[in-house]
């Protein structure tokens, strides 16, 4: 083993360094007075990490092909690191109240580390280790409010279903190993054949990642877990975890199962249509905001995966990365607002609690509206552009005169119809805030400066990432 390979894992090394610094800082700061510096420290570290990820890095292969990166992976790592930075930024008050900031930040960072490993794996074993490395701290984070029943229940459901899905996925990986005698992505891709064994391996493996991305029919845990978990963790779960898994799935589909594109296109078509439609049907009926956002995130996952319907790796990965970036800013804006409202009003998260919110907190309502518009894909906000680009990636190479091409266009049409439906429920929130009358709306409150800063970043993203085309151009050029 060549130890110098460690030096090539810069983003991971940076995260490990952060973990160690946080650990030591946690160790030496005993009282509340000293802990005041904890959140700024974590923020600065995550910001540094984001900048590190943005540095131009070569594509590397290390440890005999176990660890493989490409420029696309580096872009995604930077996006996820930015998302984590926003999560850390907005979590200050909540984490300080819990008195266990150290644990929380370490859990979050180790999850990110696991995801980074998963995204840059070159081998199924490495991939699986990365996945689990992300899962276990995630479950801990979900159970962070451990004396609150909901949180514990959410974590239990998450860990049980995650274990179950891991089992199914391992089963699928074992099929693949049985068929090809290797776990290396490149070796499998070289000798890939569409045998029934491979197909079973593919679908079983897919279900494991489908669970992470919460695609229908692997999504059932999502609503319960999102609702029960602390809001900050839900935010993290809904964007970072999902983005990493979606990226990995696309990457493996193209790079390992590239020879079976016709088969997994069918698979993805079914799952996308189901995810978008069924999630929308559920979302319409939700009265609890976090649960509502859970279904919204399932439907968004379906949109993200539209990128897999293309046959051009560069377009697909660029549009997926861009979608995740926009989704990070829009969803984090929503969850930041939910979180700050929850903290200032004794845990109110029902949609009806937001009646008349505009009268008392006009600025937050306005930002929430922008985020909802972006999620619903209303121009000129970034969400419209991200949807446009995944649609574009989806039809790339699709020829409407062939059966498959016609199906792809059909799926895009279904997605389009669902955009209209999704608009309805996103606007429900806006309606509650602006139009619905309430006798005692939530009192006016002031949010802390960290939250304000996080919201400022998110809003900038929502407003500018779409119209400033160089954001997409940059991603497309970088991948």
């Amino acid at each position, binding site marked *: 083993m060549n130890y110098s390979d460690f030096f090539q894992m810069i983003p991971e090394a940076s995260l490990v360094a952060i973990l160690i610094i946080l650990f030591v800082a946690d160790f030496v700061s005993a009282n509340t007075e000293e802990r005041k510096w904890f959140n700024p420290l974590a923020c600065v570290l995550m910001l540094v990490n984001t900048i590190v990820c943005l540095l131009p890095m070569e594509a590397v292969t290390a440890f005999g092909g176990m660890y493989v990166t490409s420029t696309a992976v580096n872009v995604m790592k930077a996006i996820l690191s930015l998302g984590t930075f926003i999560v850390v930024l907005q979590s200050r008050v909540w984490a300080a109240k819990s008195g266990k900031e150290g644990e929380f930040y370490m859990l979050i960072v180790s999850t990110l580390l696991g995801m980074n490993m998963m995204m840059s794996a070159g081998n199924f074993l490495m991939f699986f280790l990365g996945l689990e490395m992300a899962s276990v701290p995630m479950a801990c984070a979900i159970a962070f409010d451990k004396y609150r029943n909901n949180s514990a229940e959410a974590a*239990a*459901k998450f860990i*049980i*279903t995650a274990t*179950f*899905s891991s089992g*199914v996925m391992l089963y699928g990986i074992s099929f693949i190993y049985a068929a090809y005698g290797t776990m290396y992505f490149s070796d499998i891709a070289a000798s890939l054949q*569409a*045998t*029934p064994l491979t*197909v*079973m391996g*593919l*679908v*079983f493996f*897919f*279900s494991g990642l489908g*669970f992470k991305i919460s695609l*229908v*029919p*692997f999504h*059932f*845990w999502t*609503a*319960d877990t999102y609702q029960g978990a602390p809001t900050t963790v839900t935010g993290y779960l809904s964007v970072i975890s999902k983005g990493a898994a979606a990226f990995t799935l696309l990457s493996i589909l193209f790079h390992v199962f590239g020879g079976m594109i*016709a*088969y*997994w296109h*069918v*698979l993805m078509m*079914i*799952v996308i249509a189901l995810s978008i439609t*069924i999630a*929308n*049907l*559920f979302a*319409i*009926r939700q009265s609890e905001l976090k649960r509502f956002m859970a279904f919204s995130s399932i439907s968004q996952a379906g949109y993200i995966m539209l990128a897999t319907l293309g046959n051009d790796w560069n377009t697909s990965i660029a549009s997926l990365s861009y979608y995740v970036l926009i989704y990070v800013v829009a969803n984090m804006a929503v969850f930041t607002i939910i979180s700050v409202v929850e903290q200032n009003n004794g845990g109110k998260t029902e949609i009806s609690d937001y009646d008349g919110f505009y009268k008392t907190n006009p600025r937050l309502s306005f930002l929430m509206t922008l985020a909802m518009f972006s999620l619903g894909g209303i121009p000129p906000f970034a969400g419209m552009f991200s949807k446009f680009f995944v649609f574009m990636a989806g039809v790339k190479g699709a020829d409407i005169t062939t059966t498959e091409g016609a199906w792809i266009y059909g799926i895009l049409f279904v997605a389009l*119809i669902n955009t*209209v*439906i999704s608009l*309805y429920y996103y606007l429900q929130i806006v309606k509650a805030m602006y139009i619905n009358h309430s006798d005692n709306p939530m009192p006016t409150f002031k949010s802390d400066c960290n939250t304000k800063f996080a919201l400022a970043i998110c809003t900038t993203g929502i407003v500018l990432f779409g119209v400033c*085309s*160089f954001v997409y*151009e940059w991603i497309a050029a970088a991948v």
Partner: protein
Amino acid sequence: MFDYAFLILLLPFLSAIVLGLAGMKMPRPVAGFIGTTMLGVLFAMSLYTAYHYFFYTGEYTAMGQTFNVVDGRLASGVYPTVTVFNITWLKFSEFLTFNIGFRLSPISVMMLVVITTISFMVHIYSFGYMAERDEKYKFEEYEHGFQRFYAYLSMFTMSMLGLVVATNVFQMYLFWELVGVCSYLLIGFYYPKHTAVHASKKAFIVTRFADLFFLIGILFFSFYVGTFNYDLSADPSLVGKLTAVATNPNTAWVIPTALFLMFIGGAGKSAMFPLHIWLPDAMEGPTPVSALIHAATMVVAGVFQVASMFPIYIKFGAVEQLHWIAYIAAFTAFYAAAVACCQRDIKRGLAFSTISQIAYMLVALGVCFAIENEEGGLGYMASMFHLFTHAMFKALLFLCSGAIIVIIGSNFKEYMGGLHKYMPITNACFLIGCIAISGVWPFAGFFSKDEIVSACFQFSPALGWFMTLVSGMTAFYMFRLYYVIFWGKSYYEEDPENRRKPQEVPFVMWGPLVFLAIISIFAGWIPFGHFVSATGQSAEIHLQHFHFSSVAWFSLLAAAIGISLATWMYMPKNNPVADMLAKRMPVMHKAALNRFYIDNVWQFFTHKVVFRFFSIPIAWFDRQVIDGTFNFLAWGTQEAGESIRPWQSGDVRHYAIWFITGTVALTLVILCLI
């Protein structure tokens, strides 16, 4: 060398943002001061740019291209087309990209100067105009919405500058729409007034309707030609693409059609008949706005557009379309001049005069049939020249009328009369404007207008005589306006006890007037053909060397007749001849007063034809079919949502069952494909 050029777009944009977002928090004069200072900087930058563009000797690079110029000209004797920057904003396909850029060509540099000069003057002038005054005309405070006014003005300036430096037709369209929005906002500036709101809506809808054709034209053009670029000298591949389209018999129709559709958009903005109906009503906006937008800059966007496309018109088989433009414009010029002879509202009179003068410019473009200056391309230079001089003296006239309105408090001629005693400076400036627009030597209008008439004679003598007639009418209606305002029966003197005594406006208002008046006197002596001509080569304007042709003598004669007629009819205290004519020909007079009922024709057309035969069926379709579909969708969604509710039971065992069932089912489906 022009690296700073992005600031020309960025500064007004920033000022609009700052004034728009934070304006209400700052004191009114501060907001105005910020806007005006910024415009002053822009004005200086434009002059600097123009100076360097036209007179630089040496070498400079822009976008990787090196230009070796002597006195601004390349070795081939033409001014270079300098693309300062060109950023890809949206990529439609490999070849078709939407760029935002900044391009300097002779006409865009000229427009930069025109826009910033007038805009700067208007910014200063508005300090005096947009103010509340007491009985003695003493300044009390700046008007409500002063900050908003300056924010809009900045926004408009940015949009107009973006339009004239556009590197492609899509960018032009984008800024085209932006100036439309700014115009809408400024016409409706006094939004509590119903008439202002109606006028702003009318302007927006009419121009927007015309812009639809512009967009369709752009779509045709880009679909077949495969690019949004229109500048032949900036994009060497464009000639090949256009030739391919023009020579293919199946697509030969594309370029003329697309260009004419684009012109319809231009006709909307430039108020050509029958789309002129919005411009007179647009006078509901504050008068400085009328001067800036509805006289000098935005309304000539259509002329600018045709001029930008001019080489394509000539070289790729659209000369006939160019001549259609000339006929439409010639009719408009006559029609508007006829209406202008009878208006009671001085601003509306000026508005019709503007329509007539813009039509002049379009006639000049339309009568061209070749690129060469002396063999059929003279009109291009003449048109741009007139655009330049007209912008100056028409802005001057509007600002004068604004000064009068501030003092009189009304737009109607009945409340004026005899003002020359009370407002000497305004009187002099207005008179200079009138002489300039009438085409009297040696004022600005004489040179530019006579170039236009000469170009018309080159094309067809009939059109030449016609335009000479219209220029006589111009002199008549302008001097009529002048006399009814400044001479004749004085409204104040009829009852001096109870009526306010008029007086001269403050310096902040007459300063810009004097500045523009000086330009109006001398602008004709600019060797304009040296800078702007169809070929790009230097062209002589013979009039400037006292080579008066017979055309010029006839024009002068027409102007003299018009002025004398106006003097005879309107100079005395009572206007017996005018009253008698009005009584003798009541039908004609009433028709002219009502703008020959064109507004009513549109009213009839929209209400009785469009609404009844299109809107009502479409409304039905919308309510029944489209809404029905969506209601069905909503109902179906609700029902389906209700019925699948039990799936999400909260029981983890069920989740596992669904999970494994789903996996197996998917596996089976895929296995079936093998």
